[in-house]
């Protein structure tokens, strides 16, 4: 603080003597919400979040069930069997070099 500022600071000293009435302090403290009501607010906030999470998860599971082949009438054993056959066919194609030939043919189609 320079000399000028120090002079003003001293000059304004009488205005620092302003004080609030003593009862205002206790009145404000009475108006402060209790711990329980603050905790209650937090709990209700968490309830909303949990409900949203639950709804999202339920929706995801329902969509998964509706889109699965089993819901279209296929049994789980049939699905696994079909996947095994498909995997075997791919293996055979790799062994026979058929897959490479198919890729070459695809590349030729793309280039022309």
């Amino acid at each position: 603080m320079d000399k000028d500022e120090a002079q003003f600071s001293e000059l304004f000293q009488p205005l620092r003597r302003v004080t609030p009435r003593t009862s205002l302090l206790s009145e404000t403290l009475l108006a402060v919400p209790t711990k329980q009501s603050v905790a209650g607010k937090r709990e209700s906030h968490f309830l909303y979040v949990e409900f949203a999470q639950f709804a999202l998860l339920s929706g995801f599971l329902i969509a998964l069930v509706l889109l699965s082949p089993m819901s279209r009438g296929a049994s789980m054993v049939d699905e696994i069997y079909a996947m095994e056959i498909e995997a075997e066919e791919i293996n055979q194609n790799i062994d026979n070099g058929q897959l490479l030939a198919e890729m070459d043919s695809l590349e030729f189609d793309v280039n022309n």
Partner: protein
Amino acid sequence: MESFERLVSLARSGNKEAFGQLYTGYFTPIYRFLYWRSRHKETAEDLTQTVFLKAYQSLPSFESTGTPFLSWLYTIARNLYLDHAKKKRSVLPDEPETFWENLPGVLPSTEEASLGRENKEILARALSGLSDDQRELVILRFIEDRSYEEIAKITGKNEEALRALNYRAMKLLREKLKHLFTDNG
């Protein structure tokens, strides 16, 4: 007596007693700041209460490592006052005539008190002749004794700009005080 950090931590977890201790220490400067900003006792009381209720609700987000606690409270007080002034569309007290009669902290009847009151009135009149920005700065700098660094944090203004604003405010105050003191005798 609990440490400041412990009090903040307890108050954050909803301990009303800890908040009460924090509150007692900072109540007067916040009230004084709002009193000189609004120049209205009831407005200052209402806004002070709101500052502390807001602070209590926002305590979980207060980071003691950054802004000092008092500066944080001044910022809340400042924003509340600006909102209030915007709503009222005027920063003048409701009844300016009674403002001078209701200046708190004045001792009656003695000659010294009368002189003190007179000076207080003159200073308050000079203060009310400044622009809103200048008045806010003068209150924080000369009545609340805050550094430029703190005022910059409270107001969100640049320190250099604040120094320039204060220079202009002091120049204006000098002229106004000279005029007011001459008029009073």
